[in-house]
């Protein structure tokens, strides 16, 4: 009967879910598996420049799993330094971003309601131009004869330009600037939902405004802080464009190392291993976040 097989067709609901999953499968999971596979291979002078894991020789399938790349990463100090320095730069940039964006989000959430949509749009507005162009704009601002140095010399604060471009300072500016909207939006969404009577209750019970902020507003915005920090921290760790264009010789970030392995050394297996380890490092905070969030959700059904 027609009816009986129609029942086994997926309904509209599952179709909607299937589309993004299919997308993820095609463009995330499959590339991931390919990279994972390459990381267990060795490099070769061929196109593509690595040996296949499965080889057909003498009427037998030979599987070669090569752990050398991972061992190499562990032995060579350069990679560890690059990983740690990436984590450090991303962590400091996340904290700076949080300190700058919290007041912005707070002010937006407390602005008159007819202003809020305009303010939100202004936060997102810079993303309408190319990311690369905005980073180039920062190069123009920060270089030795750039706007910032000229302004400081004109104001009499500096006698001669200081090196700002191609330094860690420029990298922090770039990351904080680029990821600001990702911090502001979750913080704003959280803060705007706060019940103002809780703040009033705290004032009423004798807590001055600063203490009310620390004991009521800040703990209640914890989820926004975590979400914003994750959205800034995770992509910052693997950031390539900003350290490449704004950073100097001393800024060692794993994204740059990865690029060099792939394109300068053409050592795909080592590069894949670098990528896999970075993913593993980032999965830990993501899992912690997920665990934390699901516990929070469980508490507030």
């Amino acid at each position, binding site marked *: 009967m027609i009816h009986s097989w129609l029942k086994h067709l997926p309904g509209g609901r599952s179709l909607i879910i299937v589309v993004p999953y299919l997308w993820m499968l095609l463009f995330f999971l499959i590339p991931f598996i390919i990279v994972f596979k390459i990381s267990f291979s060795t490099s070769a002078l061929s196109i593509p420049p690595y040996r296949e894991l499965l080889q057909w020789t003498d009427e037998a399938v030979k599987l070669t799993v090569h752990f050398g790349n991972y061992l190499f990463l562990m032995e060579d100090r350069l990679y560890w330094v690059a990983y740690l320095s990436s984590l450090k730069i991303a962590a400091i940039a996340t904290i700076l971003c949080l300190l700058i964006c919290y007041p912005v989000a707070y002010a937006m959430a407390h602005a008159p309601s007819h202003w809020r949509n305009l303010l939100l749009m202004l936060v997102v507005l810079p993303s309408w131009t190319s990311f690369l162009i905005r980073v180039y704009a920062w190069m123009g601002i920060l270089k030795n004869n750039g706007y910032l140095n000229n302004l400081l010399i004109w104001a009499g604060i500096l006698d001669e330009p200081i090196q700002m471009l191609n330094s860690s300072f420029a990298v922090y500016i770039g990351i904080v600037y680029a990821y600001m909207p990702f911090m502001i939006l979750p913080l704003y969404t959280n803060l705007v939902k706060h019940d103002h*009577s809780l703040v009033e209750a705290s*004032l009423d019970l*004798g807590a001055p405004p600063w203490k009310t902020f620390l004991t*009521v507003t800040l703990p209640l915005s914890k989820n926004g802080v975590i979400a914003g920090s994750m959205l800034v921290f995770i992509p910052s760790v693997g950031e390539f464009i900003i350290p490449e264009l704004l950073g100097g010789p001393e800024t060692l970030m794993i994204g740059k190392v990865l690029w060099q392995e792939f394109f300068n050394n053409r050592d795909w297996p080592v590069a894949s291993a670098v990528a896999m380890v970075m993913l593993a490092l980032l999965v830990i905070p993501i899992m912690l976040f997920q665990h934390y969030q699901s516990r929070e959700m469980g508490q507030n059904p």
Partner: protein
Amino acid sequence: MNSSDLKNDSYLSIEGVSKKFEQFQAVRHTNLKIRKGEIFCLLGPSGCGKTTLLRMLAGFEQPSEGKIFLDGSELTGIPPFRRPVNMMFQSYAIFPHMTVEQNVAFGLKQDQVAKDKIREKVQEALELVEMPKLAKRKPHQLSGGQRQRVALARILVKQPKLLLLDEPMAALDKKLREQMQLEVVDILEKVEATCVMVTHAAAFIGSVNLFDGTVIQDEADHVIIQSPVLKHPIFVDHGITGTEGMSVTVALRPEKISMASKPPEKLHNCATGIVQDIAYFGSHSIYHVELETGQLVYVHLPNPERGASHATWQDKVFLEWNPHSCVVLTH
């Protein structure tokens, strides 16, 4: 009427207070005097400025005009966190990230009270609202009535000079409301708190006794009013701004009337009647007493111990009340 006498008499005094928002006059030239230990209800339709008045007492709004005094010192201009005033919010505003215990302790922590003292006081307050077993719960694990008790405990524990209750029953369903009304009033009377309450829950005042009458004597320190429904005159021990012969209404709360089986030895502030009905409310009963003139009077009495003699249906009873229990409402 001597105004300095009145100041001594009133604990909270609101003098000529107005509040104007940009385009809208929320409160217009309001005068109020409230005695210590009084539970004062602000009634009226929504939007008439009750909540604005309450928020001015709490310090969240500043009056555009006029002054507020509490216990002899001026309150106007003092920020909310320095006022000896605590408010129970309509939504209860319980901190969702703290346990019941932490919520109740919050106000005491701000006052730098010692830790073991806080624990002791919190325990006392939770016992008062019958919640000690739920001390470790988070607010989302509580029912509406339990949240209300936490909100009440949180302000009672600070023993403020003035309690403010904004629509304390609005967030509860009807059945719970009726039960909690009696309990809240009971608790407030137990701690002898001075309290201003915004409500449009009629039951809070539904059974207030109102006697229409005429002023027959008007002095600085007392007024005598004759009501057609009462045999004896009403003697009020405070002055009013009125003249002899003007018509007024005397309000008398049902719990301010005492009931006896023997006639009192006085000829004012008393009445005789027959018990028509008794409504039992746990710790209290409400007696409906019909006077000789046909007027129905509500009397709110605590229930006696088991076995003690008490008036019952169709008993003849004698009612009396104190001169300061009467509130004179001028028309």
